[in-house]
């Protein structure tokens, strides 16, 4: 297993994802002799995990079952221990495409935070690219290095513990893309320019507040970036599927048990669950009649000319 390559069977030392049910999963470090507690019972690593195929169903001691999944950056994003606010896959997708990342790209990132975006970037630039990530918090930088090592990707990433606004990324003239997710990105634009290759580099800065975006766009213009665009992407998840599926089973069960269909009292409308994340869109309140995972993120992306 590694985050940049699929493996077929679970091995000692792997990071695996235990899937319990809808939106319920957690990561686990597979180790000989250890056990993991779940609400369905105990999972014994040596007997139940090691040697099994990824994607297998594992029965726990109390009788319920779980699935063991191969880790991917997307699953990691949903399950990693938060040390800071993280970026979710919706934003990560559009960032990856807008920065034109692909195998072989050199990317600079700050701040590393909890490593959510970092794992996704490493996955995209592997096996010939590299990620230079800067984090000014010493413990977080150290934890990030440890995680990259555990996940088998340390050869693709360099974590530097410094302040990007003062000392830059530690490299110059080689990056294809730079990504900033810091409180004052306008202070790092100059350093970003220095890290980027002479022509054709792309930059993206991610900020929750429009004032930050405004200042960053001005700084980008001053430093000669062109084609500055600001985008916001929102994810909307439909939960009607679940209801539609349950409804059908209730209907079918009514038929089988010869009960009148009007006994189905559940109507098909989704749960109202609004998660405001990086909250600019406070106006989209709980009056929404659909599930909205509002990823309110502004970012400008530009080209160096």
């Amino acid at each position, binding site marked *: 297993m590694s985050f940049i390559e699929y493996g077929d069977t679970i091995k000692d030392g792997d990071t695996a994802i235990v899937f319990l049910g809808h939106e319920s999963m957690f990561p686990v470090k597979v180790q000989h002799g250890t056990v993991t507690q779940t609400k*369905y019972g105990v999972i014994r690593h040596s007997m139940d995990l090691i040697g099994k195929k990824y994607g297998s169903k594992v029965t726990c001691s109390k009788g319920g079952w779980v699935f063991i999944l191969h880790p991917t950056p997307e699953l990691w994003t949903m399950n990693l221990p938060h040390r800071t606010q993280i970026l979710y896959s919706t934003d990560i*997708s559009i960032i990856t495409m807008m920065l*034109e990342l692909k195998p072989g790209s050199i990317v600079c990132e700050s701040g590393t935070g909890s490593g959510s975006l970092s794992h996704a970037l490493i996955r995209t630039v592997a*096996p010939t690219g590299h990620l230079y990530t800067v984090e000014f918090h010493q413990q977080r930088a150290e934890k990030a290095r440890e995680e990259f090592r555990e996940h088998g990707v340390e050869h693709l990433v360099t974590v530097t513990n410094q302040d990007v606004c003062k000392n830059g990324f530690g490299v110059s003239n080689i990056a294809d893309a730079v990504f900033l997710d810091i409180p004052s990105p306008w202070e790092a634009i100059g350093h970003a320019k220095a890290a980027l290759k002479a*022509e054709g580099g792309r930059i993206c800065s991610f900020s929750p507040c429009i004032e930050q975006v405004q200042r960053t766009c001005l700084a980008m213009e001053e430093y000669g970036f062109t084609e500055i665009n600001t*985008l916001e992407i929102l994810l909307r998840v439909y939960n009607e599927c679940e209801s539609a599926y349950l409804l*059908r089973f209730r209907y079918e069960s009514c038929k089988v048990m010869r009960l009148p269909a009007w006994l189905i009292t559940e109507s098909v409308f989704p749960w109202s669950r609004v998660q405001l994340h990086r909250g600019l869109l406070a106006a989209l309140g709980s009056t929404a009649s659909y599930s909205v995972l509002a990823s309110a993120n502004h970012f400008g992306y530009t080209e160096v000319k």
Partner: protein
Amino acid sequence: MRSRAAEGARRSASGAGSGREEEEEEEEAVMAAGHGPRICEGECAVLKRGDVFKAVAVLRRRKIIFEKQWFYLDNAIGHVYGTTFEVTSGGNLQPRREVEETTTETKEAGTDNRNIVDDGKSQKLTHDDIKALKDKGIKGQEIVQQLIKNSTTFRDKTEFAQDKYIKKKKKKYDAVITIVKPSTRILSTMYYAREPGKINHLRYDTLAQMLTLGNIRAGNKMIVMETCAGLVVGAVMERMGGYGSIIQMYPGGGPVRAATSCFGFPKHFFSNLHEFPLSKVDSLLSGMFSTEMLPSEFEDNALVEEESNGLADEKQTSVQETEEESITATAMEVNQTEEQEKMDINAEDIEFKDNKEKDNKENVREKQRKQWERRKKLIEAAALLTEKNADGLIVASKFHPTPLLLSLLEFVAPSRPFVVYCQYKEPLLECYTKLRERGGVINLKLSETWLRNYQVLPDRSHPKLTMSGGGGYLLSGITVVLDKGKSDSSNLEALKMEEPSSKRCKCMCSAGLAQLWLLSA
């Protein structure tokens, strides 16, 4: 950049041929390691003006129509991608110098528009006057200045309104074109703006979600089924960087890869791109696959099917050939892919006639060799599929996704992500239900992304355009080991009950491709 642009202008005047080597030497001296890629003849480049993109093949002495302008690309060859050009009166491209913004000494401006009457008479220059200026060869910058001078209401506008006016006039008269290197970002934006019907209205942010949710990366073995002119295959190829392999499933006679050729991938990327007909999937799954049915029947079908657009191994050369036979000069801008498809069908017709005329042994042997090649490739692709260990599945087509998914998921290993795109939500709802019945998938999620872009200017920041609903929907999930016994969904009460056995049989049979339904007319 200014000095290089000036150099470029001087060089291009003396001829693009000899200038290129000198230019390159200088470029190498000036630029740091990793200088940008250059515009080469025969490649596909994308012309950009503002937010409008157009993909064209870079060929000498070929007239290009773009944004109401006609020009030749000859002078652009050799320049770095990203260079901005302006069109000279001769229809030639010249690299544009950076011009200083002429700042007016006293910016006279009003406070609001209460006294500005829009009677259409505030511009003193007539249409003919402007035309005369343009014919004289005066640059766009100058024309804009003239327009400002001859506008009676300009000085009454607010500063913001003046800025907006200047921007608008510049957009119209200051015609600059940038030539950019194709990439997923550019091509998907271009297709969505110009030919959304060709890609089933797959918006670029939805495509971005697919690439990430599907964990597309180097080294994977991907199965892709798409009817988006090859855009999705191209995007997947870009993210895989030539590593790993892709098996493209296609309906009809052959895969359509018009967009894939625009990306400009190196040749070795295509050695790992396989294709397999959907019509053979059932036989492959049941173990009765054979290549017996292939020979002439397959080839004839390929010529007749309106969907097929050349075969994989002829793709590169056919693009070159078809570009040679250009369409006559029509006033309307014709999309390059439309041209390609029309031309490809014509080329195939010509090919067909040729084959009939030159009916000698050489040709027959050639035909047989090609058939043998195709059969060999088909067997290779079938072998890859029957291993049933694909690392992911991407579906983005105009057909109903349910039967496609139910059969293609058989080829995917457990614990791998899959993503299905559909222009409409309802088929995906049905798909969801069928998948739950089948089992072997978890974490099913039906989603849609909304995109909003912003104008960010000091004191003038506001959203511009919200794109929602028109970008399509995604159903994503993860495969798990298929439990042939009971349903392996969550441990909910309602789902523990046994389904009537007849329903289960019906479910399995519906995986047949006899139920491919076309959604769009």
